[in-house]
């Protein structure tokens, strides 16, 4: 009865078109009032505590802010140039470079659709110009873009750890190898098909050029090292690493890259300026720019964007915690787990069910929302079946990746259609061969836990 009320109200509210946060909150509050003795006051304070008593949750707004600073066209361009210089000289090199650029940009920005838009709008046209079929280029980019939520730092992983209280640091470490593996699989597939399709290679640009473009991309890439380094060096918790990353990203965007802010379009060294002159100019310009960026319109716009996304996500999480509270006090997952165990469903069978359920949910909801609703239900069941919590998290994240590529809500499909000017149907067809790779990868991740667990176990 309680279960039915909770879920019927939730889905009714969601399909009425209510914002997910309010749908979660309303269904939970109503269920609590109807079926338990909790007072309204205790519910209200639970909502407040959800956003003001979880230190790890603060990592979410901080990472969103840092990615807002570095999700710019300028950063995408630098990463693409670097990736092209690294792998461009191999057969099918431009496509491989695009995949590599997607992985790097995804790691910095943490958002899949943003990765497809920023990298795809440059590289798809570039590949077509080089004689690649457009559908080949578009499919590769749309798929590589999904790696954003698997390669750390990832906001979806933080949401999973918020929902299940699994260590975010361990989740980040667990995502690294699967992320690199999937990127590797895509690149091998490109190399094989490029040999077969006789796709062109670039001339090798020489080590000088490689180091130059590497240097330019480095400032952005250092963010990943900074985050992982401070967390695993024991200097900072994920929250603190995220705050440092936000400050670092701000300084790189405003002072280093000058993509925005008071120093925009004013290079470190103006043409014809002597080195000493440039240094002297920086000496007063840089502190001025740091102070000036607080009133700068562009910088404020980026902060507003980051704040907007963070507030909405944190409010959903707060309400999802009420929802999870109802689930645990009513012991709903526990009951489901008992039923499943009494069926004699083995762990691998349960994981198939999990995959199917998440793939279906991924078709019409946004990744963070799905995780917040499904994780509190699936997590206790998985624990009883002896599945590792971190492994479950990675499975869920890979499922969410696939959800980005399946209609009707697959965000990457829409973005790819937008940047290529083709129809959704065309994009779906273009993605299909690559999607099969991703599905194969999901099976691999699901049934070989060592891929996800080896690194976190090694480090702990």
């Amino acid at each position, binding site marked *: 009865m309680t279960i039915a009320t909770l879920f019927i109200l939730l889905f009714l509210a*969601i399909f*009425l*078109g*209510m*914002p*997910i*946060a*309010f749908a979660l*909150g*309303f269904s939970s*509050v109503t269920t609590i009032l109807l079926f338990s003795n909790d*007072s*309204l*006051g205790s*519910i*209200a*304070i639970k*909502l*407040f505590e959800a*956003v*003001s008593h979880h230190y790890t949750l*603060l990592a979410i*707004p*901080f990472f969103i802010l840092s990615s807002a600073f570095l*999700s710019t066209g300028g950063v*995408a361009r630098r990463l*693409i140039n670097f990736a092209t210089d690294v792998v461009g000289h191999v057969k099918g090199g*431009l496509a491989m470079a695009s995949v590599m650029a997607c992985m790097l940009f995804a790691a910095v920005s943490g958002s899949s*659709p*943003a990765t497809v*838009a*920023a990298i795809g*709008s440059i590289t798809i*046209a*570039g590949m077509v*110009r*080089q004689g690649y079929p457009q559908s080949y280029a578009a499919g590769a980019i749309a798929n590589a873009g999904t790696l954003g939520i698997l390669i750390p730092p990832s906001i979806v992983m933080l949401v999973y750890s918020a929902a299940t209280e699994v260590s975010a640091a361990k989740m980040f470490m667990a995502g690294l190898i699967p992320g690199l593996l999937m990127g590797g699989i895509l690149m091998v597939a490109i190399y094989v098909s490029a040999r077969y399709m006789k796709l062109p290679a*670039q*001339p090798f640009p020489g080590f000088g050029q490689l180091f130059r473009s590497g240097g330019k991309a480095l400032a952005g890439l250092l963010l990943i090292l900074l985050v992982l380094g401070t967390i695993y060096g024991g200097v*900072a918790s994920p929250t*603190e690493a995220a*705050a*440092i990353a936000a*400050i670092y990203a701000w300084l790189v965007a405003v002072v280093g890259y000058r993509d925005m802010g008071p120093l925009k379009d004013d290079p470190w060294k103006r043409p014809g300026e002597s080195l000493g002159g440039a240094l002297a100019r920086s000496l007063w310009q840089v502190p001025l720019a740091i102070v000036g960026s607080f009133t700068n319109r562009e910088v404020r716009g980026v*902060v*507003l964007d980051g*704040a*907007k*996304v*963070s507030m*909405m996500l*944190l*409010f*959903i999480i707060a309400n999802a915690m009420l929802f999870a509270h109802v689930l645990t006090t009513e012991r709903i997952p526990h009951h489901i787990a008992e039923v499943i165990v009494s069926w004699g469903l083995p762990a691998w069978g349960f994981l198939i069910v999990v995959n199917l359920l998440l793939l279906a949910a991924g078709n019409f*909801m946004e990744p*963070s929302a799905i995780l917040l609703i499904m994780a509190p239900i699936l997590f206790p069941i998985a624990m009883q079946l002896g599945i590792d919590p971190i492994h479950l998290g990675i499975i869920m994240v890979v499922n969410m990746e696939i959800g980005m590529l399946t209609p009707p809500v697959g*965000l990457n499909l829409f*973005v790819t259609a*937008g*940047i290529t000017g083709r129809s959704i149907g065309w994009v779906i067809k273009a993605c299909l061969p690559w999607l099969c790779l991703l599905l194969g990868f999901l099976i691999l991740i699901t049934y070989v836990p060592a891929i996800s667990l080896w690194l976190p176990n090694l480090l702990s």
Partner: protein
Amino acid sequence: MIVRWLNKLEETIFCALLVAMVFLVCVEVFYRFVLAQGISWAQEGSLYLSGWFVLFGVSWGVKHGAHIGVDVLVKKLPRGGRRIVTLIALAVCLTYCTLILVGSYQYLQLTHMIGIELQDIPIPKWQATLILPVGMALLILRFLELGWRVIKGDTDSFGFSDEGQESMRLAEQRDPEDYDKEGRP
């Protein structure tokens, strides 16, 4: 004029709260590692900043269509039906906000009576939690405003944020002509 100014003020306040959170956490790390002495109130401070940030901002999100939701089904309805469904959904949202508002009032009254303070910061707890009723009241205002716009026929849905649409901004900055022969931008 005043409305635009208030809007700007609202944005400035929650952006400032976010920036303050970032700096507070960073300064704490600096103190702990460089000066070998942490700031005792930093963690609680940043957590309460986060609470104020979120609860102050959600009402702004209603006005600016920043919330996330599923509108696949609602979009399929004819315009009249869509308006009715949206009004029902708004009524449910209002119920929720009112319930939390009443609950927070009860809780605040209780903590005010007992007179407890925060753990590390000498501020009465009811003052630190004040944003909960304030945020809910602001939400109610925004939902009523949205409801009025739906009744007048200016809009017929919540207007959810679309991450895909927003990402396109990153793509629109370029046109496909600025690549050289090697496909470099």
